[in-house]
């Protein structure tokens, strides 16, 4: 009974109505589109929760790093502008959820609007351009106008998730955007980079929603998971993270401890 009710209660796309997922819990939390409602019996980590406080940073560029044994590791150099100051602490009592709001990148006073300036002056912090929240399970130990030092939060060898805006690629076709395969270049083929067929025949007689088609690619937020911190340079205030990060040099990044089920996130 419960499984039929769950499958009918929300209009899920065709490929998501698998009964196995609805067997797990009778509530609507079995899809990963909706957050679990607070009325559930256990307070679990939802997708928007972080595994720990994070920081914001700027991408500076890439270089090679020689490990002591001679292995060459491609690293991205990440720098910190003046910022990473706690601007507001949100609690369950005042705002309905627990979060720490962090600001980044100091700017001139005239670059911010009066509402923004007023918000920052309430915490007594310098004018900061970017504000982001880190939603945590417990907000103990954070106060407004507290500086977050990278060295205390992350060490060498830690795994981090890095989120940022990707490079914008403009309007792109199916091959670049969705890794479609192109048609034959010779042998009389007239279709080289086209989409091909976009649906079946009279039934269903329409094109499904979400059909992969050309469109704007890039310029969106992505998160790269489980990147290793190779080196922390305290003098230059710079971190080296293995691998590539979204965006071009100068891009704003959001670095958080990696969410690994079983290690940081309780298995529910």
């Amino acid at each position, binding site marked *: 009974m419960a499984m039929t009710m769950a499958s009918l209660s929300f209009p899920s796309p065709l490929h998501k109505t698998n009964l196995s997922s609805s067997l797990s819990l009778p509530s609507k939390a079995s899809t990963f589109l909706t957050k679990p409602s607070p009325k559930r019996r256990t307070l679990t980590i939802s997708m928007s929760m972080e595994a720990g406080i994070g920081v914001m940073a700027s991408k*500076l560029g890439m*270089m090679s790093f*020689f490990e*002591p044994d001679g292995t060459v590791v491609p690293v991205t150099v990440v*720098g910190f502008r*003046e910022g990473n100051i706690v601007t507001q602490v949100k609690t369950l009592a005042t705002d309905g959820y627990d979060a720490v709001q962090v600001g980044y*990148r100091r700017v001139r006073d005239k670059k911010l609007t009066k509402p923004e300036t007023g918000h920052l002056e309430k915490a007594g912090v310098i004018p900061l351009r970017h504000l982001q929240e880190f939603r945590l399970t417990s907000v103990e130990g954070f106060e407004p106008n507290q500086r977050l030092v990278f060295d205390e939060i992350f060490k060498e060898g830690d795994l981090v998730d890095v989120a940022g805006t990707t490079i914008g690629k403009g309007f792109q076709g199916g091959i670049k955007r969705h890794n479609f395969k192109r048609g034959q270049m010779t042998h009389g083929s007239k279709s080289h980079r086209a989409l091909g067929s976009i649906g079946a025949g009279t039934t269903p007689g329409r094109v499904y929603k979400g059909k992969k088609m050309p469109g704007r690619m890039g310029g969106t937020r992505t998160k790269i998971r489980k990147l290793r911190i190779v080196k922390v340079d305290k*003098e*230059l205030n710079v971190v080296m993270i293995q691998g590539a990060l979204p965006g071009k040099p100068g891009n704003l990044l959001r670095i958080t401890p990696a969410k690994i089920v079983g290690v940081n996130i309780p298995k529910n």
Partner: protein
Amino acid sequence: MATSSHLLPPQALHMIRSQPSKKLGFSPFLSCAPSMNPILSISRLSLSHSVSKSSFSLDTKARREVLVRAEDNPEAVDANTATEDNVVEADEAKAPRKPRVKLGDVMGILNQKAIEVSEKVRPVPEIRTGDIVEIKLEVPENRRRLSIYKGIVMSRQNAGIHTTIRIRRIIAGIGVEIVFPLYSPNIKEIKVVSHRKVRRARLYYLRDKLPRLSTFK
């Protein structure tokens, strides 16, 4: 306050006039023009001299740079002499004041530092295209013996710490090209044996030539 104006590049003077006296963020310094005069030692003195006068209100954290670059100091410090009405943090108490590193220079500084560290362990001779070199390489798995690679340098790609050279040699009748990162900790010795006059920077034409030209005993 252009008392040390004889050391200031004209660009910095222009910048002091144009920028209003406010708490400046990063952007004004990044936009200031690169100085033309590379006065290293004099700029160091001018730095300590003008710090005692200026109110350096930019930096609140303890982020200081040991490697002082000539271009940064005169402009960064002397621009702040114009912002004299600001918070007089009076950093004269901290005598060794290291200037702020611009984020745009960090990549260059990191590469330089890494090269210096590597050079201290093992100095790298000057290698150009056309040199015939002998490289002693340590393979981590086979730590007892060093592998020796000899050949002519076909090309040199400059990329900071990952500067590489491409060595060509005929081994057992087959042409072999190997790329070596010059500053790798695995390379134990590089020795220039001799030099052949070449008139190219990249000797890719050797691939089409007779094997005799790429054979080295």
